[in-house]
């Protein structure tokens, strides 16, 4: 059985299943209960700033913890809880806020297993909202998955649709490593038929979501639907595109990237983040380093410009990679 769910609802369902199946799973974050334990006819819970965790505190009153607005304290305590028997899922409201709490991820969670000689596991999941598209401006719109992906010891995933979101989140929570789970704003409301029940999508496996032999469009999170739409437009001109959804930024499915490159000889990477030290640049380097003999055209990167995310609607739209840019870039390869 499957029902139509948004990505946010799929996340909620995954959290519900994770908590039902493992009593050690706890949710921590600002407003994740959001008044849910108050009573009164005119009082209801927020369930997070975007309502993603709504309903969970009523089902699991002891395990959904509203925290103070203290990201360093929350993340640090979650790491401490993770190494002493809990399996915490932290909501970092927006990934931009990582600036206030990077240490527990960078120097604690990511490094414990290594520094302690393999004698500890850190089963921590950090759910966080990323990306532009809501006019949330420069401090609530960044795509910083490149940052956590570059820290050895952390895993970073970014689903593009509700089905993957549910399976990836269940896999992330049950993973014995710290995993950063990015919820890209532009796909948070996307709807799909989501299978009911408990299933996982393995972390580290990309998905070839469209097949075509002429060019490879590689996307992640919100840029995957853009790649698919661009592929449909290009198909009308007789250009058939592979679309590869990375799903996981670290581990990166290098074999899937090289396989699509080998098939098409042309790669366009579409990345919502800024271009310096980016996933797009990393993939371009991979294609040149390990796939040079397959390349028929230069590897193209479509990224945000090297600037903060603007507020004004037309500026924000110009900032975000677009279907038109993808189509034009592919046409320019010919």
């Amino acid at each position, binding site marked *: 059985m499957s029902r139509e769910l948004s990505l946010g609802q799929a996340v909620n369902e995954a959290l519900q299943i994770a908590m039902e199946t493992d009593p050690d799973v706890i949710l921590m974050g600002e407003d994740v209960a959001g008044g849910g334990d108050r009573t009164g006819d005119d009082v209801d819970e927020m369930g997070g700033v975007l309502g993603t965790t709504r309903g969970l505190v009523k089902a699991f009153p002891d395990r959904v913890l509203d925290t103070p607005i203290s990201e360093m304290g929350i993340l640090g305590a979650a790491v401490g809880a993770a190494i002493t028997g809990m399996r915490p899922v932290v909501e970092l409201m927006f990934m931009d806020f990582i600036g206030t709490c990077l240490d527990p991820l960078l120097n604690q969670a990511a*490094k414990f297993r290594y520094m302690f000689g393999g004698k500890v596991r850190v089963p921590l999941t950090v759910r966080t909202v990323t990306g532009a598209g809501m006019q949330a401006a420069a401090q609530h719109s960044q795509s910083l998955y490149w940052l956590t992906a570059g820290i050895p010891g952390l895993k970073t995933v970014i689903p593009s649709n509700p089905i993957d979101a549910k399976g990836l989140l269940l896999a992330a929570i049950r993973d014995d490593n710290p995993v950063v789970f990015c919820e890209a704003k532009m796909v948070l409301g996307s709807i799909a038929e989501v299978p009911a029940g408990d299933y996982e999508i393995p972390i580290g496996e990309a998905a070839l979501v469209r097949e075509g032999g002429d060019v490879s469009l590689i996307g992640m999170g919100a840029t995957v639907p853009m790649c698919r739409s661009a592929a449909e437009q290009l198909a009308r001109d007789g250009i058939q595109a592979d679309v590869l959804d990375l799903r996981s930024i670290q581990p990166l499915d290098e074999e899937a990237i090289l396989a699509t490159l080998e098939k098409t000889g042309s790669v366009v990477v579409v990345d919502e983040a800024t271009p310096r030290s980016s996933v797009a640049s990393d993939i371009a380097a991979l294609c040149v380093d390990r796939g040079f003999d397959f390349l028929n055209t230069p590897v193209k990167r479509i990224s945000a410009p090297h600037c903060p995310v603007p507020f004004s609607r037309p500026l924000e739209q110009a900032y975000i990679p677009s279907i038109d840019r993808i189509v034009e870039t592919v046409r320019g390869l010919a």
Partner: protein
Amino acid sequence: MELDRELLIGAYRKMRTIRAFEEKLGELVTTGKLGGFMHLYVGEEAVAVGVCSHLDDGDAVASTHRGHGHCIAKGVDVAGMMAELFGRATGLCKGKGGSMHIADVEKGMLGANGIVGAGIPLATGAALSAKLKRTGGVSVAFFGDGASNQGAFHESLNMAAIWKLPAVYVVENNGFGEFTPTEFVVPVKDIAVRAASFGMKSLIADGMDFFDVYAKAGEAIAFARSGEGPVLLECKTYRFAGHFVGDPLVYRSKQEAEEWIQTRDPLPLFEARVTEAGLVEADELREIDREVALKLAAAAQAADEAPFPDLAELTTDVYFEEPRS
């Protein structure tokens, strides 16, 4: 105070082990045998031992860059620690952690820590685990006066207070944050008063006096363990050595340091107290000194002779991986 002979002898052995361990390290670094950054706990032994005497393996401790004393007090294997500091495969962390990252989670030792204040939220999380899992465990964060200026300190104490966590925050006020005197950077005389802003119980102990630390820590830990909430325990102590081995110590008065070392050393103070009370004979303590010295010499020799990690270990243990079936 119920202090039986066995407890006193055990406490002395731990304090002497810490002192001898640190002196051995100082010697090994100075002679070029050991590398890396080394922060010695000399002078502060009564704090770690006075607190940890109330803990068992089910209780958690988060430590600092000056962590050897906490490890030894918590019962971590000294030979494994020594091998770790030599960077050998036989080290507690396979030689991958070193001085600032010694950990033994099985013994409730959540790690020394190279980031000032980082252990405070970790201990808070361990206290949350203990509360949610109803283990009866208590979680202790050791940290310095310097760390009490970190946001992590304030955020953690606030969270522990609202959730009434079984946590004890032990601030070792040793007079210096690295090289800067505490009074330059802390506007209050007693760091313990900072607990008041969280409605939290606080206590102050003479950190050079094992008996005072033992009593106050006992009160704090019993309070936290009973579910009444967290406690901030300030132990006034003094860092006999520099911030790190090799510190030129130009920033503090030699006379001040000498006074502390000559008149406030926790080991002679302990000895005077127990021998005058007729609880333990001085000869027994000398015997412990000899045993400890032999044990550490053997540990250092074994560590020195142990193999370095295989180079293939460079990239292992980055992630937990399910065993392949």
